[in-house]
């Protein structure tokens, strides 16, 4: 995976050095920062042997919530807190259905994906949030510092979660729950609470991701985030996290986001047609998991 990234880098350096112009790299970082933030949450969920395919709908709701809060005149820190809280509540709903009722996560989040998306459509009638106050776009910092702020926030969140996951008891509990819930219970971890918490964190991070996206534009689209779940799950899986839980790192997820995010712009720089971006992303996903499977360390061999 790291090798693939290096190979792509060498190819670009040779054929299209313009790719590494600071302005292009910065744009790439800014546009992928929200994906990274959501992928951090997805890594937690998948490490705990769960999945969340409702995040695209959560993303749309949190974006609209942040826009409406900003229009109501709240100061930006409260707007940000509101978006994260809205996400955490939606994620908590998934967590409750999965952890408390013991229902399978893939079906629960399929249901909430449809339910939340259609509820938002009914509430907004597809109308975008417009006429946002000037202190909303780029946090009111102006474009250059605003871009920097987006990158700094995403990397700070990344560093915090990466450190916590490997150094805090709570972080180890996520790994323990994902590799063997029964064993985790016997050593005093409460797997249901861990599962609930990963869904709530997932939602909160999606809220942040939506905020980091919506401040980049002049309107908030009510139809945002369609397909986000598959993009994010793909990045996590390409980053080497086992879909059957318990194994994976956030550093891998960072590399996965970078690789999948770089493919589209790289195609343009290499003079290829951008329409092939999605096909290439699919190939990268399959190549990543197939090489793992052939080398025998597998993404988990026991179904999903």
């Amino acid at each position, binding site marked *: 995976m790291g090798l693939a990234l290096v190979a792509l880098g060498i190819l670009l350096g040779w054929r299209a050095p313009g790719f590494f112009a600071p302005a292009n790299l910065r744009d790439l970082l800014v546009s992928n920062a929200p994906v990274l933030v959501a992928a951090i949450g997805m890594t937690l969920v998948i490490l705990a042997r769960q999945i969340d395919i409702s995040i695209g709908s959560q993303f749309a709701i949190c974006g609209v919530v942040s826009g409406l809060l900003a229009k109501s005149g709240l100061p930006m820190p409260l707007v940000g807190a509101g978006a994260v809280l809205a996400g955490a509540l939606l994620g908590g709903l998934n967590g409750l*259905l999965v952890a408390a009722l013991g229902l399978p996560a893939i079906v629960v989040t399929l249901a909430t994906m449809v339910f939340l998306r259609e509820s938002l459509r009914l509430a907004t009638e597809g109308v975008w949030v417009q006429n946002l106050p000037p202190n909303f776009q780029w946090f009111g910092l102006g474009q250059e510092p605003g871009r920097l702020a987006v990158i700094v926030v995403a990397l700070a969140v990344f560093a915090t979660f990466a450190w916590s996951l490997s150094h805090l008891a709570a972080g180890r509990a996520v790994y323990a729950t994902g590799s063997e819930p029964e064993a985790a219970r016997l050593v005093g971890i409460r797997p249901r609470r861990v599962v609930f918490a990963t869904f709530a964190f997932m939602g909160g991070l999606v809220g942040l991701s939506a905020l980091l996206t919506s401040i980049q534009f002049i309107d908030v689209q009510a139809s945002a985030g369609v397909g986000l779940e598959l993009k994010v799950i793909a990045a996590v899986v390409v980053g080497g996290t086992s879909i059957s839980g318990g194994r994976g790192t956030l550093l891998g997820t960072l590399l996965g986001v970078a690789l999948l995010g770089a493919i589209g712009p790289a195609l343009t720089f290499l003079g290829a047609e951008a329409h092939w971006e999605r096909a290439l*992303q699919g190939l990268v996903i399959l190549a990543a998991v197939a090489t793992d499977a052939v080398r025998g360390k597998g993404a988990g061999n026991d179904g999903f």
Partner: protein
Amino acid sequence: MASETPAARLRSRLSHEVLLAGLVAVEIAYFAAVGSNFLSLGNAAEIARASVEIGLLALALTAVILTGGIDLSVGSLLGLSAVMMGAAWRDLGWPIAAAVLVAPLVGAAGGALNALLVARLRIPPLIVTLGTYSLFRGVAEGYTGGVRNYSGFPAALLSVGQGRLFGIPAQVPLLLAASVFFWLLLHRTGIGRGIRAIGFSPEGARHAGIPVARRLGLVYVMSGLLSGLAAIVYAARLGQAKSDAGTGYELFAITAVVLGGTSIFGGRGTVHGTLLGLVAIAMLQNGLRLADRPAELAGMLTGVLLVVAIGTNRFFSERSRA
């Protein structure tokens, strides 16, 4: 049976399919009362016509999910098959009768790729089909440049999607035939029992002498093949084939299967349950539209129904464990 609780007594009298049939009956009664024209043969034909593509995918997915697997790539493969069919007809100048065969061939080939990765390399199906979900749609987008639209198909093809046969929509017999085939396969043959056994325990199935890799391969190839057939029906019904054909269909189909009582963990589920789930969803969408209610309500109610369905599904699975 002295210790029988009221819940256990309820469980012994009801099954998931009975509850679902009850739900469909309630929908019919409600929409007949509030909507105009709901209870007519014309409208029944309309509902049936609109459900064929999702129905074909849902039948194939019933077999896939019974093995404990999943196939997220069916909607994308429908799109790719439809585009390739259009390309064979218009770009290569093939007669429509030959071009139509391209769709199931492309579908079966795509299914074979899933089968290879799931059954031979033993990669989790969720990941494999997430990858091919992007790959199939991406190839369709790349080939058409994201914009080329194949349309103007000859009347012979359009009659499959828009015409009538013996008074019923012409594509409905295809769904009926596929339903009978899958019902016999899954409920009346050793292959079907093997597929179920794999869903309960792949390791146990292997020890019982079931060729696990071949059975897994079969369900994914069938899933691809039916995506290709659904592509023909799609192009014939809408009169066009574009790279975005069938977007999101995988979720509708999975919803019908799970609502129909098939366990997402595999092993338990029926073809008639899936058909009831399909009817429940299709009727909800159609009925709400005729009753002038917002279309979004259909999606919201489907989400609620799904959660309720898996809740009751657990309730019944406790019976089978007892």
